[in-house]
């Protein structure tokens, strides 16, 4: 596929923005590692051979009775020395570099929370789970949640802002009043009430936060459209008979995109922060879920174990800074006046 000259230029500007480029590479690494969390940090071998058959336990469910009729018919516990021995007798196992999942409780570690050691590079938390494994899974959750919330909220926000700015008048008036009332809703109270009725899952939490976070972009896009609607090029498009939606999409939206892109990294990092803070307060993901917020909360409860605090701070701060650096570079590369 050949890129158009425009995209080549944008890409070249992005590459020239060193900080953004390095951040993108870092983010790509973090993204790939965290998306492949199952194969990097798991308490199951990701590949094994048993009696001439190849298995992928990381994504396959294999009953314990496959290896020994005396074992339970539930999924095999590969950390159990007896299971290990039974498999090793007739085959081999390939373990991921971190042989713990986010919910694996390490029984043979020192008193939890244990300080960093060769086996646990970031130590263990208060329930004796490997911190590094939890960070990797936690990043995956945060990134997916952040992206999901940002993308859907931005689309809704841009459409709402565009309609308000383009039509103006009464449409704008009513929409603005609605937004004022809606943004006055006590989000946190509603969330506490919600979490007392149902246990919030990933999707419920996403949907709920979406109800309130789409308004960030509306104001910016609305202002941009209000400004542009009386410019001559929009008038010229009207004089050509261009339909409204096409004027909005082709003529006005590209101008609002810079303002939008400037906001995107902040919305993304806001979403990550929001999830982390809800988890910290205990209204977020169900207990036990690998979340960065819970790590912060554990760090607060265990000040004698500074590795928890440092890990939480560096992970959360690092991911937010990286996202903002990337956003800056994207914004510059979309600026047509930059060469």
């Amino acid at each position, binding site marked *: 596929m050949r890129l158009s*000259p*425009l995209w080549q230029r944008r890409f070249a500007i992005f590459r020239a923005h060193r900080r953004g480029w390095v951040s993108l590479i870092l983010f790509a690494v973090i993204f790939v590692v965290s998306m492949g969390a199952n194969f990097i940090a798991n308490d199951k071998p990701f590949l094994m051979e048993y009696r001439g058959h190849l298995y992928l336990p990381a994504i396959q469910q294999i009953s314990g009775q496959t290896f020994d009729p005396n074992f339970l018919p539930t999924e095999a516990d590969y950390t159990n020395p007896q299971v290990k021995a039974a498999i090793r007798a007739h085959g081999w196992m390939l373990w991921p570099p971190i042989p713990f999942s986010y919910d694996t409780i390490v029984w043979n570690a020192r008193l939890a929370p244990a300080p960093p050691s060769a086996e646990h590079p970031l130590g263990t938390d208060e329930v004796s789970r490997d911190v590094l494994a939890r960070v990797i899974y936690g990043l995956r959750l945060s990134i997916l949640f952040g992206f999901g919330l940002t993308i859907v909220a931005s689309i809704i926000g841009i459409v709402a802002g565009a309609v308000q700015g383009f039509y103006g008048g009464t449409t704008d008036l009513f929409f603005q009043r609605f937004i004022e009332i809606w943004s006055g809703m006590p989000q946190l109270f509603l969330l506490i009430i919600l979490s007392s009725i149902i246990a919030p899952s990933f999707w419920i939490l996403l949907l709920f936060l979406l109800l309130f976070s789409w308004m960030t972009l509306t104001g910016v896009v609305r202002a941009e459209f209000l400004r542009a609607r009386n*410019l*001559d*090029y929009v*008038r*010229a*498009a*009207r*004089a*050509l*008979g*261009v339909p409204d939606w096409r004027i909005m999409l*082709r*003529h006005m939206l*590209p*101008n609002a*995109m810079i303002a939008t892109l400037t906001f995107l990294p902040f919305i993304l990092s806001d979403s990550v922060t929001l999830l982390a803070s809800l988890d910290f307060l205990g209204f977020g993901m169900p207990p036990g879920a690998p979340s960065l917020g819970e790590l912060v909360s554990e760090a607060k409860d265990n000040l004698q174990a500074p590795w928890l605090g440092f890990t939480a701070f560096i992970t959360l701060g690092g991911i937010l800074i990286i996202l903002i650096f990337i956003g800056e570079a994207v914004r510059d590369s979309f600026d*047509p*006046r930059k060469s």
Partner: protein
Amino acid sequence: MTLLSVQNLSLSAAHKTLVDNISFHVEPGETLAIVGESGSGKTLSALTVLDLLPPGVTRGGGHILLDGCDITAATPAQKQKLRGGVAGMIFQEPMSSLNPLQRVGKQIAEAMLLHGKFSKNTLRSRVLDLLREVGLSDAEHRMDDYPHLLSGGQRQRVMIAIALANNPKLLIADEPTTALDVTLEKQILDLIAREQKDRGLGVLLITHDLGLVRRYADRVLVMDQGKAIEDNSAEELFDHPQHPQTQRLLAARNFAPPPPLPNAPVLLEASNLSVKFPILRGALRRKVGEIAAVDDISFNLRAGETLGLVGESGSGKSTIGLLLLRLIRFEGTVLFDGHDLCRLSKTALNVLRADLQIVFQDPYGSLAPRLTVADIISEGLTLHEKHLTRAARAARVAAALTEVGLPSDAAQRYPHEFSGGQRQRIAIARALILQPKILILDEPTSALDVTVQAEILELLRSLQIRHGIAYLFISHDLAVIRALAHRIIVLKNGKIVEMGLADTVFAAPHAAYTKTLLAASGLNLHSSHATSRL
């Protein structure tokens, strides 16, 4: 003693020479005009006098002596004294040069206080005297107004009052009338000329308009691309221009009228057009009256002819252009091609839009900044000629670009890569690609340099002859109207003041207002045939 002497001045930014070794001087009581097109370095040369260069521009060399003080060696404190104290400055845009949040009287008083020449308790009466001197009517009340309550001409008078507040010896006027109507332009320049006489000021007048210079300058320095190409007394320069660029600048404002048009069928008939805006008052925004931007106007337009709409800002001329395209609400009937544009449904109107196109004034605002030139020009085709293949569309775009005199590789570039004149060509190509029958030209040349203006007018004229398009040409500038219009309508406050054949109106105007406009425009109607380029 020479008031201002600039010798061998060179300015550069990022290794590009902006001003190349120019010298000029101003004596007390004399007006020196620096004339040039945009980018010729005339404004920068004036800004150096007070060391007000924008960041990034550096002075390569040269000596500047202002009232005996070497500004290149002056300390910041000395410079502060010179600015406003010895030399006052008037800028182009009176709206943005006044602080919108302070009363105008206070802004003048501040200028006086800064130099400490006057005691505080006499300030108010001094400000009042000054405002009366610059001819601001009702000065006692006006001095307590905010700038947005004043008209453009009044604001420029206030700017002049600020510049004169400390009795300077030199007045630097940087395009003081570019943002104003022709009749106001004359008033403001007359005011500057009167002040110069009364106070014995030296005046440095920066302008792109050679026509102004003839009436107001003693000596003229013509600049082109950073170089001084001609320096002479005004009379000598106008009678015997030496440099070809000067000759071009002089010729660019003198257009021959278009060839007469044989009887052509009427294409568009507008009758009893009115556009009214409600006046809303009070907390409940009740309607207390109406302002008519366009008041009961009727005219017709024949195929292949140019109808000129002349008037000052606020006369409703642009509103008529928008109205014909039904971009604003109006009353009246517009018959075009057997249809009443006012009553057509939106879809039916969209079909007709291909025949009625518009070119706007501001070449920077009229092109979508994030679309390529090809996208901009071909938009009409994608809507009105949907059957075209991609290749056919590209061919039509290339043909349209050639027709308006742009290279075909322009298609893949963005509007901001083009100059003002080229952008206006793109806007014309966008309108032309649909082969319209009527083209509304809303001040298409007002934002352009004079020589570029002449090129665009030439292009428009040849397009009209080739395709037989009817133009509705809207302008405040009688010189460009002269170049294209077969018939003329003079508008004032939304009403028709005079209507007739162009030759008749220019030769023997009836209405007093038309006479004022003609006088203010400084058009030399008799010599225009001899020096014409078109």
